[in-house]
């Protein structure tokens, strides 16, 4: 198949998909395509979309997906009459614990957060942002938790390694009233 045709097919596939499509998945549909030319096509397509003002192709959860750009959110929200909902702070803190320490058990999370988290864990399981990975081989065989693909999709992450390390966080989020010494000192510790 010629290159141009492949690109058109890939675009049509991305266009109709409500979830990220991995290279593997695309290769399955485009039987017999070699990996390299598929990747080149995706790169080309992505560059073309970079020129667009309203749409873009992003890599999320190990796949490619077309999204509208940020600036267009107000109109789209208006069309669908949706109001953005946000996770609570407790949910975000627990998610951070799970994402950075997976597989992790409940008591580990609670030892850091200092509060009972069963309610939050339940909520996160229900939203399919975390999942049960199995059991830890210690007394009581507690359940082990980890994050899901939906977690990556929800936060728009390519993969788990895209989560910023603590150092990056410090650079990214200069805290307003946080005392300077505090930050410096904990950096020294690292």
């Amino acid at each position, binding site marked *: 198949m010629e290159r141009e045709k492949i690109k058109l097919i890939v675009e049509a596939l991305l*266009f*109709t*998909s*409500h*979830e990220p499509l991995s290279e593997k998945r695309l290769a399955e549909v485009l039987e017999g395509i070699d990996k390299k030319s598929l990747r080149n096509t995706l790169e080309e397509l992505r560059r073309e979309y970079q020129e667009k003002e309203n749409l873009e192709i*992003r890599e999320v959860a190990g796949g490619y*997906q*077309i*999204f*509208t*750009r*940020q600036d*267009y*959110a107000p109109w*789209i929200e208006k069309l669908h009459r949706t109001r*953005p*909902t*946000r*996770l609570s*702070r*407790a949910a*975000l*803190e627990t*998610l*951070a*614990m799970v*994402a*950075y320490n997976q597989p992790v058990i409940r008591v580990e999370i609670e*030892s*850091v*957060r*200092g*509060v009972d988290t069963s309610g939050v864990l*339940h*909520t996160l*399981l*229900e*939203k*399919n942002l975390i*999942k*049960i990975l199995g059991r830890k081989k210690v007394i009581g065989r507690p359940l082990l938790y980890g994050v899901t693909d939906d977690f990556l999709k*929800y*936060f*728009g*992450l390519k993969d788990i390694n895209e*989560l*910023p390390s*603590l150092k990056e*966080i*410090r650079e*990214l*989020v200069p805290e307003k*009233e*946080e*005392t300077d*010494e*505090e930050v410096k*000192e*904990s950096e020294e*510790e690292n």
Partner: protein
Amino acid sequence: MAYHVKLEAYEGPLDLLLYLIKKEEVDIWDIPIAQIAGEYLGYINMMKLLDLDVIGEFLVMASTLMKIKSRMLLPQEEEAIEEEIEDPRSELIEQLLEYEMYKERAKTLAEKEEAQSKLFARPEAEIPSSQPTFEASLFDLLTAFRNVLKEKAPEIVREIEPFKITLEEKVEEILKRLESKEKISFSLLFKECLSKGELIVTFLALLELIKQKRVRIRQPKLFGEIAVYRAPA
């Protein structure tokens, strides 16, 4: 029903402690325990006055603070001879720093959430399929039902049930109720059940109706309470 007052600082004992440390502008590495413990107890008393029921974990922290305070008051020289004494505060400091780190991480997640929520993808197409599919995991199913069973205390049921409601009757009842209303909340549907048997029948009736595509289950508020809707004709 107790009303919930949720202030930022009250989300957990560590939150409150960090809040006080920042408010008093004290050094996290050299917390003036007596002062902070005093402030902390002041807040707990206030929470008691407000009749907040989340006090347990805060009390644990308060007692930790008091313990540290008393250990700090001990004459240190004697102990120091035996071994390098550890600052009684160090464990707490470690915990606070670790917690703060996750708070930062949570903050970056919140930023990513914010950014991602402004991006819209193609919606899921309604592909006609022979078998209805549901976005539910095994866990979802079990918890939903678990919730239902839990809310009703089993004592209500005795061996003799005054009347038995069949699956068909329940199906009819749900449909009838949806004639006059657009939706019924999932939990309400179960609150009105008189027995455990009826709960189970209600649950099954709901599953049956979903299967037959006669009702739809939606969460109008993302992740919110589930509602049962009449399926469009």
